């Protein structure tokens, strides 16, 4: 009887740990979509923005 309850407790423990791990992974993925450091793709975007600044296509915003 004892071993059965130990097996059930262990199974629940494993399920709980797996749920925590899954939730953590999902949460970090969503956060990385929201904000992150610039990656390889973004660096091309910054290069284009740099060009726009260099050619005067965009100028700093001045608050009124």
């Amino acid at each position, binding site marked *: 009887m004892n071993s059965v309850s130990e097996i059930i407790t262990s199974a629940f423990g494993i399920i709980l740990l797996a749920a925590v791990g899954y939730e953590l992974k999902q949460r970090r993925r969503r956060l990385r979509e929201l904000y992150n450091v610039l990656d390889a*793709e973004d660096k091309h975007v910054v290069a284009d923005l740099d060009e726009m600044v260099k050619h005067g296509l965009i100028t700093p915003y001045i608050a009124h």
Partner: protein
Amino acid sequence: MEAPTQSYSVKELPRFQFFLIDSGWIGPVPELIRQNLGMITHLHNNDPFFILSREQSSELLKKHPHLIGKDPILLARDLHGSKTTGAKEYHGFHLNLGIIKDPEKAMDVLQHFLNFLAVHRKSRSIEAKIRQQLHRDGFEGAIEVLRGGAENLI
């Protein structure tokens, strides 16, 4: 919000270049950002803030389709990133506000992001701080979700 751990003596020069990319210009989130541009620029008054027009933003999104659906995007370029790492690469961060539908939540996230950059603007490696924050937010969020789930069970 924790205090910066390390600082270096670049005080007066701009630390960031901000870019606002928004191809839509309609909807509660872009409206809210426009209404609060003064606040955004006030918090980082030494840093140049560039706003792309709708056409310029659309062209950029066409050229870089991985950005589609994520705008309005606030891109902060760290001008001192290469000085601290020695790498001749672009450094910085982006905040993809377009993936948030609730304007109040978007405002909250924007304020938190700007506050974070202001607090850590003198840090040697702000990218490392962002990664730490990402790690911490993910962990805290998971705990909150699990706590919510546990409360529902109770």
